């Protein structure tokens, strides 16, 4: 597929996913969308990359971060790419240990697709 550093797993018309879309666009980030099936049980590709079947989920090759849950993703994007962030590459060591993923799992709230 394309060489975008950010892969974004999403559902059509999922407001949580659109929330992430808006942020990605706001920061002018290059991303590749992969739309998955609405049926939760058929989202094996998401399970494989993130450990669970919920969307939205992103894989950011800039930092090595994989995470799901829109609140966490938006927070992550703000921190990584928002105003006052120290840029994408310089912080890769800080987040490439997978710490973000366990955090997002811990904080998972109900209600997402």
């Amino acid at each position: 597929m394309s060489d975008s550093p950010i892969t974004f797993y999403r559902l059509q018309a999922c407001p949580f996913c659109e929330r992430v879309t808006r942020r990605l666009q706001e920061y002018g980030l290059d991303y590749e969308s992969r739309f998955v099936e609405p049926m939760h049980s058929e989202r094996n590709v998401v399970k494989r990359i993130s450990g669970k079947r919920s969307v939205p989920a992103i894989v950011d090759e800039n930092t090595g971060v994989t995470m799901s849950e829109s609140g966490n993703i938006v927070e992550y994007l703000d921190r990584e790419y928002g105003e006052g962030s120290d840029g994408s590459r310089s912080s890769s060591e800080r987040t490439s240990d997978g710490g973000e993923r366990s955090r997002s799992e811990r904080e998972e709230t109900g209600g997402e697709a």
Partner: protein
Amino acid sequence: MDLDFDVVDLGPADHPEEGDEAPDFTRPLVNHEYWGDVSLDEVVAREDDPTVLLFHPMDGAFPATYVWNEVRDRGWVEDATVVGLSISTPYAHERLLEERDLEGEVELFSDPGNGVAEAYGIAHDLDGMEGIEEPRPAVFVLDDDRTVEYAWVATEWPDLPDYDEVESAFR
């Protein structure tokens, strides 16, 4: 086919011929797990083998079923990258891949606006389905810089490709 009536004559189509460069396009490409925008150029460049680009009537009608059963049974994917295209939505494409037992074998472009067929000169207005058009059945075998090595476009409706002939272009 030997029928005692005339099938519909679609006339000649102004499509890319052998030696021409097939027009590039980007559309959602559906595999068994997800879909995303992919260009034809990316598909042909992926591997060393030839690419079979197969335009078929919308998913659900008998021609789509016949064509994909045949492609599967003949094992085209062993020697070529096989991609299909119809006006059906990605959701319908997911069903087709599942029902025809093609998961992980072929991928399908979704082009509800029929723009790709326009670019290939093979658009077909469907009688009795106002507002809907789709590609004529067509097969293009492409090398890895999109040069057409074999082209077949239906001139009758309905019509199905000559599978042996297509095969001889890439095997």
